[in-house]
């Protein structure tokens, strides 16, 4: 038995648009694009960005001859250190974030108190511009620096003297990192294509391990487990296995220009399969930020910025990402942190649990309140409830109502005024199906005809609509030739129409030319 069925009334609907074949975003790329970017302008190129390792996670940006500290929460500058004689090249926080070291192009390394910003120590030994300074992660007493004189030095910060010098690089040393698991092990990368692993306990300035990146090394970073390093240089980011004796694991070559900086970031989300996994973020002169999943060995997200990128930083609490560019803009992005805030709130309410209990007695709604009249309307049905659904009402637009009343001409005019080309086409198709379109056109008065001609001018060459509209345009011009001759406004419309049609013909011809060029190639390829 068939259920009782009366014909419904169908509104005219525009044609469906085709859906994208591939889903727009993966879950992870949704995560990365959930960072809301804002610009911090008016700086001169930013070669280095570094985050404080402790709680508020403020960050320091080196730009020209000064170093500015920013709050990670507001992204506003909190302080500026400008006691530099030359452009600042690199900065580093100590692991407890009490000291801040910065190097400049004069070769001087200065150590500041991070709070008061007073210079505490001046470490002068490099003769050439110093581009790399770094506090080891597990060592509070020493400092590593490297300079364009190809020397790597280990400093005793308190005494302002170099403890050890590591010779071995043959070109500028521009980058390095310390091991997250051992206080004595660190690596440096140089423009001689070589990355060297040093051990401070070995004094004879012989590197424990060396890796050949095959391009000037711009940045090098230890991966969190300490057994692997990632190096950036040229167009590629390479992954090396240190425990396996410096074996190349993978080379990621999705940048088009030199990769200038890399850092390690964590997907700070509590759900999803990629939560709390680490990713390598790389930026390059091509303006791209790429997020590389080194577990799956693939790029999971890619983002473009309108300037060559020089440096990247990612806060340890996963809430802030900063990118420095060569034209002096910092793209700082913050993630919307609703969940975390909620957590905090719930925690605090846990603490104050006793207090709110007194307020839990439900207020009785009185007819004096608006909510009284809406009570129970938002009630959700429970499991066993039998739902009586109200039949959905079909919403009819103005043109639908007119079509239902067989006022075809008015329906056409009303939809032309509504300026949705999809709807206009749907109404035209319905009129064609009722054999009324041409009659409508012939009955339009001059002002409405102007409306129609403006619409035709605008959309008749659009591929989605052209099949119907081209035929209609021809008919309109044939049928209303006398009216068009009589009105200047209509003449203008027709002139515009003619122009757009000519332009379309030109486009088609050039497309055909291209097709003519391509088709022999395809024939050959198909063989």
């Amino acid at each position: 038995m068939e259920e009782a069925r009366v014909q419904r009334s169908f509104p005219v609907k525009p044609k469906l648009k085709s859906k994208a074949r591939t889903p727009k975003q993966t879950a992870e790329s949704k995560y990365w694009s959930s960072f809301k970017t804002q610009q911090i302008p008016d700086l001169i190129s930013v070669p280095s960005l570094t985050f404080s390792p402790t709680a508020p996670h403020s960050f320091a940006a080196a730009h020209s001859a000064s170093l500015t500290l920013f709050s990670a929460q507001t992204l506003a500058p909190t302080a500026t250190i400008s006691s530099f004689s030359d452009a600042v090249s690199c900065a580093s926080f100590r692991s407890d974030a009490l000291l801040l070291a910065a190097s400049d192009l004069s070769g001087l390394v200065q150590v500041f108190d991070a709070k008061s910003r007073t210079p505490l120590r001046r470490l002068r030994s490099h003769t050439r511009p110093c581009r790399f300074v770094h506090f080891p992660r597990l060592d509070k007493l020493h400092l590593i620096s490297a300079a364009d004189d190809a020397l790597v030095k280990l400093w005793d910060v308190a005494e302002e003297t170099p403890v050890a010098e590591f010779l071995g690089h043959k070109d500028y040393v521009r980058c390095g990192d310390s091991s997250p698991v051992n206080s004595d092990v660190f690596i440096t990368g140089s423009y001689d294509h070589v990355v060297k692993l040093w051990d401070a306990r070995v004094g004879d300035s012989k590197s424990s391990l060396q890796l050949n990146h095959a391009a000037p090394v711009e940045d090098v970073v230890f991966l969190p487990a300490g057994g692997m390093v990632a190096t950036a240089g040229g167009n590629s980011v390479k992954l090396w296995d240190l425990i396996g004796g410096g074996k190349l694991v993978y080379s990621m070559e999705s940048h088009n220009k030199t990769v200038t900086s890399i850092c390690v970031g964590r997907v700070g989300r509590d759900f999803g399969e990629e939560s709390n996994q680490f990713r390598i973020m790389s930026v390059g002169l091509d303006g791209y930020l790429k997020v590389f999943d080194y577990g799956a060995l693939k790029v999971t997200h890619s983002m473009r910025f309108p300037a060559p990128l020089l440096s990247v930083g990612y806060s340890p609490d996963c809430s802030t990402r900063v990118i420095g560019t060569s034209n002096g803009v910092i793209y700082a992005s913050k993630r919307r942190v609703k969940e975390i805030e909620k957590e905090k709130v719930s925690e605090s309410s846990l603490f104050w649990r006793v207090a709110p209990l007194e307020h839990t007695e439900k207020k009785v709604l009185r007819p004096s309140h608006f909510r009284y009249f809406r009570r129970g309307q938002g009630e959700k049905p429970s499991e066993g409830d039998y739902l009586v659904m109200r039949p959905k009402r079909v919403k009819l637009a103005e043109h639908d109502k007119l079509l239902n009343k067989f006022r075809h001409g008015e329906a056409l005019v009303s939809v032309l005024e509504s300026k949705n080309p999809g709807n206009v086409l749907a109404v035209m198709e319905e009129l064609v199906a009722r054999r009324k379109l041409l009659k409508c056109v012939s009955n339009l008065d001059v002002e409405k005809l102007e409306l129609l001609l403006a619409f035709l001018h605008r959309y008749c060459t659009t591929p989605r609509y052209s099949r119907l509209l081209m035929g209609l345009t021809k008919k309109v011009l044939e049928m209303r030739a006398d009216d068009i001759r009589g009105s200047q406004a209509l003449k203008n419309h027709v002139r515009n129409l003619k122009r757009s049609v000519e332009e379309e013909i030109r486009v088609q011809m050039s497309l055909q030319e291209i097709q003519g060029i391509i088709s022999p190639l395809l024939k050959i390829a198909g063989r």
Partner: protein
Amino acid sequence: MISGGQNYVSSAPVFSNDAKRLLVCTGSTVSVFSTATGSRVSSLEGHSGPVTALVVVPDSSTLLSFCWTASVDGTIRHWDFSVPECVKIIDLHFPVFSMVVPSLLSPREENDAKTRPDVFAYVSVQNPNAEANCLSPRCGQIRKCNLTNFHAVSSLILKETERPESLTISPSGKFLGIKDKRKLHIWKVPKVDSDSAVSKKITLHHSKTITVLALHPMERIVAAGDVTGRILIWRGFGAQKFMHSGGLVNGRSTNDEEDKPGVRENDDAESCSTWHWHPSGVRLLSFSSDGAYLYSGGKEGVLVLWQLDTGKKNFLPRIGSPLLYFVDSPDPSLSSISCADNQIHILKMPSMEIIRSISGIKPCLSSQDICEGLCSRAAFDYTSGLVAVQTENYGIQFYSLFANRGLYEVQVCERNHQPVDEVTVVVSLVELSVDGSMMGTVEVKLPEDGVGGLVCLKFWDLDDNKRFSVSTLIYEPHRDAHISAIAFNPTRRMAVSLSYGGDFKIWVCKEEIKQKGQMLQNSGWMCHAVGSYKNKAMRAAAFSADGSVLAVAADNVITLWDPNNNVLVAVVGETLMPITSLGFAGKSYYLVSVCHGSKPQLSVWSMSRLAAFWSYKIQIEAVSFTIDFSYFAVLALLPESNEYAFKGDGIILLFNVTNPTPMASWSVTKAKGGGLAFLKGYPSEQLQSLLAYINGDREYVIFHPHSKEAFELSRIRQDDHVLEETGQFGYTSIYGELPKFDPKRNLTSSISSAASERPWETIFSGSSHMLPPLTKLCSEFLESLLEKKTPTVE
């Protein structure tokens, strides 16, 4: 053999006395449907020709269930339809086209029950002698016959008409009438009827051809509809002739003409009024049982309810099909309307809402000739025995061949359907995959004067409720060329669509790609490959049983393709006319092609030799292939000269591909526009597949093609569970069951309540400042006045 697909609307259905059953004439049988569930309960079988009239014997106790039926085979039968069995057969020797039995309707006098008068039926018969002598073209006759003691049809001929006309009787049984072109003839039924009793007759005239008439249940009012959509109502007809017995000529009637407004000439009626709402001919007219309202309907599919005194209208719109009959039931809350699309809707009455539909298979599109070449035939579902037919309102109806009932409908094109409108949108193609899980449809919007026009291809998937829902919609898949065919790959989710424009496209459902490891969320069909062969129009395609070869008919050659890589493998042969149908015979290496036109041809091609194997010059209407074996069946149209020899205009031939001699043949009627399909048999009946033949009128038979004699299939109704109707009607349906009245219990309980305390005497005693507030007292006081019924346990 299962037959089905009968026309439910060939004549008006009738409700049984308790309104729980609806009797419907279905071809040569009468089907009894349950009004509560809408499913078939039983059928009365016995007539050898189409049943044309059905009269239920009315009975006040609603227990008896007898009915009379009349048929074209010349017999009138008396049935007990509750059992069901035939009680009595009367052979009239004339084909009966309409029958009414007035004496059943008129209230019978109880006292002379013993000397019951004979029951007389008025029949409209076709005079077989009239055909012989061409001089008198009037072959329809209205006659009388005695049903109680039948000897022969009464020689008295009430009226001769050009064609047998249908008789209309007033619900009181006093009058009966027919329409005859522009005239109405109304007879008064004599009080005591006999074979020779002459009924009095009046004639009413109109200027247009009358299509339908109805008689008022109480008063002397007749309503008639004409071809222009007007409804005429004559009040007080027969005032002179019927009322004044004894031939007394009333002086009043002759002199004043102006006293009879609207009545033509010397017609015997007091007044005539005209209502005009219907834009085209009126098809149904019926008075409500109380006589206050008139129902009318026509081609536009709107049931109009007229208030008889004021002419005010009420509507039931959007029924979507021309209306044919409106039938009232003894239950005032039920009635039924029959629509031309083979549906009977049961209406809940005062609100006129459709509560249930008894759906027969929908008839062929009337627009088939408008867009010839575009419309295809019904599609069959091999596995579940369904047939999918296009409907007028741009939908597809799924009809179960085994259960013989409509299952559901899907709307292909979301458009409002008006039966009177010119056809501009057509669902031109429907195709089901072998396992019945995928469907492809094509809808065509015809252009207006070269502007507009659109071809849409839709792919459908079965959803969780085993119903089809749209999966993918493709606009203009072959640019502006029309699609000629769709074929599904039997093994994969792959389909091919062909166009007259000379190219084909292979479509693949994306879910398949997902299985190969890519992560794609939205499943849908997308174009996998495009192919063409010398820009020849393509009209037929078929996949081989393992899905590895695609055969496409390009005009008059067959091209073979590898569908996965879209590579042309081979080109086979050439026929004289374009190939219109193509198929692989089961799992064999043979391909069967069919050509139409002036040189029709049925050819079998061998794939191993890429050459013709054998062929016939024969006009083929339909062809069907088994899935597993190398058999195929064709439905051939016979030349007109052979029709008498074969007793039919078509013949079904069953072939084995390897042998040009047919294995079996059956001759059939109405083969034009028919279809043929192999269906999967019941699991109990081994692997034998069944052959279904559906004729041009969408009636079908299912039979075993291999059994020698006409083996009777046990008619299994899989899901025809007859729910026992617990529905109530009349008073109880509105107010529910009354509590059983038990005088004894009532007596005792009333005594007990009377003996209870009388609080109103004590409630207000005491000083006023001691009294509780009035609001509290009031409820107590009122409560004490109420008579308490103490629940008594019995």
